[in-house]
């Protein structure tokens, strides 16, 4: 059964006869939807980047209770025990696919707005340092991370002070070009390669030899042990077995989960911030829609009376005006989404508060965000249109006709 028998073209043509009001009202809603969608896209980009960082078949072992690799410590002895008791995959040469890793943070200068030597310094001369993850990896460290592909230069040589940098580092930071020398931990490290790990956290890291890093940073313990399972389904049994071992004090997460967890704090902050901002802005848009719709009801009082006289019920009139508000909101929602979709061309590089490390990610538009944004727009339309529609429905026929 048709809900409102009032023809839909009556509803939407009315929107287009008052073009300016429609454009202004829908424009206000579009801006709110833009903010709403953009924030969700930021959150999605962050989550997606961190979730994509890990592989399901890899397991990360860190000291129990440490949230990040930076805080963790894992002794050589523990690493050996894990390697000897976990069902770790072997490579063609019969070597275990596991990597003992040393993870530290160093500070680097971000590009842009810096006081460069060659150009005359631009007025807002800000040197923005950022914390970068330096990851010392074991011999199989690259083999278990096939998503990181060398795009320039070569791999670092084990046992040397050579490093390779992720694409986001190479693009966003000063002094990390191929052949450059970086000074940290009282040593000079030469950049011999640039790798691209796609939209992952690894793209914002610097990789070198684990043992070299341990020496340079005077570490006795590894930060983590990362190994590849022979069978990805063996994760639960492996975790159980390792946790039951009295000699071990580590915890074991799938690499995917490990990185996904690192997005939690910031993702929830972004989403709370986004919700608060959207809620505040939406009040304006809802009031705008309400004013527009009250004006529409006032202007069309005679039409409402006529429709009712012809036999349309209050319900139909109510629905027609609600639909009008919803169309208006949908229009705003679609425009807002189109604007927001352009944000996909922008990337953000910022500190992940959970790890204190710099992370590059981009605004990501997902079908869920599209759906949420449109529903949000419709909700604004509903809230803005409800009272005016109610007024339209409650008019007395004779009064409405008299007002015409």
């Amino acid at each position: 059964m048709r809900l409102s028998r009032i023809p839909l073209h009556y509803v939407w043509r009315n929107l287009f006869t008052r073009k300016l009001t429609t454009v202004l009202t829908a424009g206000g809603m579009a801006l709110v939807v833009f903010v709403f969608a953009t924030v969700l896209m930021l959150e999605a980009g962050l989550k997606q980047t961190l979730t994509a960082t890990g592989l399901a078949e890899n397991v990360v072992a860190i000291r129990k209770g440490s949230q990040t690799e930076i805080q963790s410590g894992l002794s050589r002895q523990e690493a050996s025990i894990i390697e000897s008791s976990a069902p770790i995959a072997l490579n063609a040469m019969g070597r275990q696919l596991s990597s003992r890793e040393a993870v530290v943070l160093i500070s680097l200068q971000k590009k842009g707005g810096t006081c460069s030597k060659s150009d005359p310094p631009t007025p807002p001369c800000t040197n923005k340092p950022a914390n970068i993850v330096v990851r010392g990896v074991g011999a199989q460290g690259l083999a278990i991370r096939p998503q990181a592909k060398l795009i320039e230069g070569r791999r670092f040589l084990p046992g040397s002070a050579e490093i390779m940098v992720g694409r986001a580092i190479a693009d966003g930071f000063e002094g990390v070009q191929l052949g450059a020398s970086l000074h940290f931990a009282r040593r000079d490290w030469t950049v011999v390669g640039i790798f691209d790990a796609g939209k992952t956290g690894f793209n914002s890291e610097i990789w070198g030899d684990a043992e070299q890093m341990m020496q340079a940073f005077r570490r006795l313990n590894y930060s983590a042990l990362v190994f590849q399972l022979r069978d990805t389904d063996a994760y639960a049994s492996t975790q159980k077995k390792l946790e039951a071992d009295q000699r071990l004090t580590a915890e074991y997460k799938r690499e995917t989960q490990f990185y996904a967890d690192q997005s939690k704090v910031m993702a929830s902050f972004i989403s709370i911030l986004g919700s608060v901002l959207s809620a505040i802005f939406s009040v304006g848009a809802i009031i705008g829609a309400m004013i527009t719709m009250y004006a529409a009801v006032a202007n069309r009082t005679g039409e409402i009376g006529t429709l009712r006289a012809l036999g349309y019920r209050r319900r139909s009139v109510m629905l027609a005006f609600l639909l009008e508000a919803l169309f208006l909101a949908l229009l705003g929602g679609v425009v807002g989404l189109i604007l927001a979709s352009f944000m996909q061309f922008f990337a953000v590089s910022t500190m992940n508060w959970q790890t204190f490390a710099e992370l590059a990610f981009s605004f990501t538009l997902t079908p869920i965000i599209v759906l949420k944004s449109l529903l949000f727009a419709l909700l604004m339309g509903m809230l803005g249109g409800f009272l005016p529609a109610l007024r339209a429905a409650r008019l007395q026929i004779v009064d409405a006709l008299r007002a015409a």
Partner: protein
Amino acid sequence: MSQPAVSLRHVSKHYLRGGQVIDVLKDIDFDIAPGDFLALMGPSGSGKSTLLNLIAGIDQPSGGQIIVDQVDIATLAEAELADWRASHVGFIFQFYNLMPVLNAQENVELPLMLTTLNARQRKEHASLALEMVGLSDRSSHYPNELSGGQQQRVAIARALVSDPSLIVADEPTGDLDRKSAGEILDLLGQLNTELGKTIIMVTHDGRAAERAHAIRHLEKGELSALEMLQPAKV
């Protein structure tokens, strides 16, 4: 003769304004036979529109019974009354009251949206109604592209398209020049004689009233005796 098309029994209507009761209609009693064409006249503010609105079921009396086609419409629930209007009453207004965003065809189809007709049937019915008022060639024109007389003809097509037995017209020629008014009155006469519609028309214009079978005068809320002009066709 069969049952009257419309019977009013002790119908009264009063408004409360600033704590004061204003009697607009007092104890109105009258019948209209099916197929009759009645003109309602009277000075401004005498309650003509109020009476017409009561008969058409868009207003509620303060007291009394209004029986139209054997239904006491004063007892119907609001939604039932809306459905009853959709199938039994055609409205013609002084200012046409067409939807400006709908073209002639769509305006005429509007009452048909409330029926079980499908889109194709609605189109056919509306085209036929427009043909009857001589506006087939204007079906895609919007109200602001039509003259007042043409707009009123579209409104007549809209009033007759759902084939109601009763047509109420409140000063249908009040906003028209003499020639257009003549055309509208001709059409109303046609609806009455050819289609057998019962018509109640409020008018200030004596010439318009002469087209009816009978005239009733309303003064200070009371109805005058029936003034017969021509014998009602049965």
